């Protein structure tokens, strides 16, 4: 068993100390359940007006959605690696991977902004129809989470560069990473529901 696995396995028997801390996991549960409830209402509304929802969904660009999903998943991979490298004591690599995570997060925001600008150009706003009310609110709230996540990661990046965290003391980094992965999880909910399924 590696030292990383040894440290992590101790958390298995401790309900109050999940990886990243209990508060972030309570937040993750609340956020995920909130988005799931909203999407269940979305599915119910779609069942009542399937034709309008299908027409509206056809106005979205699934290619942009797919590219953005791959960008966000890749950023999640680099963040997971950043934490792993830090646990292994490889600080420089951890700093580098955190920076890549931030850059990919910015790419996600850029693609989403492009998608939003296209919708606005065509006059598709929040009050266009029920589908787009859900679209703007759900993706908008997710984008706010991504923006907050990037701010947290920038703080972690500079703290890592200053050597504030090491292989033994890095719970803040794990917490920030958990928040970033939560953005992944929420997008995993939104992408199929808004772009793929009708």
């Amino acid at each position, binding site marked *: 068993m590696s030292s990383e696995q040894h440290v992590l396995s101790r958390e298995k028997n401790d309900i109050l100390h999940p990886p990243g801390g209990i508060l972030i996991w309570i937040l993750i549960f609340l956020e995920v359940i909130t988005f799931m409830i909203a999407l269940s209402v979305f599915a119910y509304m779609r069942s009542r007006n399937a034709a309008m929802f299908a027409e509206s969904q056809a106005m979205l660009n699934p290619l942009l959605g797919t590219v953005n999903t791959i960008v966000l998943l890749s950023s999640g991979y680099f963040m997971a690696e950043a934490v792993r490298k830090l646990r292994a004591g490889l600080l420089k690599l951890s700093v580098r991977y955190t920076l890549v995570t931030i850059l990919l997060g910015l790419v996600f925001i850029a693609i989403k902004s492009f998608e939003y600008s296209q919708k606005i150009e065509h006059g598709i706003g929040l009050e266009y129809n029920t589908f787009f009310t859900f679209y703007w609110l759900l993706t908008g709230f997710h984008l706010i989470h991504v923006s907050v996540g990037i701010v947290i990661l920038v703080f972690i990046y500079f703290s890592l560069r200053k050597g504030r965290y090491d292989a033994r003391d890095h719970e803040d980094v794990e917490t920030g990473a958990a928040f970033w992965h939560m953005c992944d999880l929420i997008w*995993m909910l939104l992408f199929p529901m808004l772009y793929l399924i009708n």
Partner: protein
Amino acid sequence: MLNNKTGWLLLILFTLAGSWLSGLSHAFLALVMILFALKFFIISYQYMGLRFAHPFWRYSINIVVLGFVSVIIFSSL
């Protein structure tokens, strides 16, 4: 057990498969939702370290995700 890189490859593969299947037919809704659930589990268990957490956290997330997938699949029937 997965490592981060294998997990990432599976996530990309499932994303592309989901996009492709949904373009083929609406009949693949259940499969798209199962792929969603698998991606959710890879991120939470592999990237977020849920596999090292107390069973309470693991069972809770399993119940929430499987409940949501069931609601979406059965509401479409």
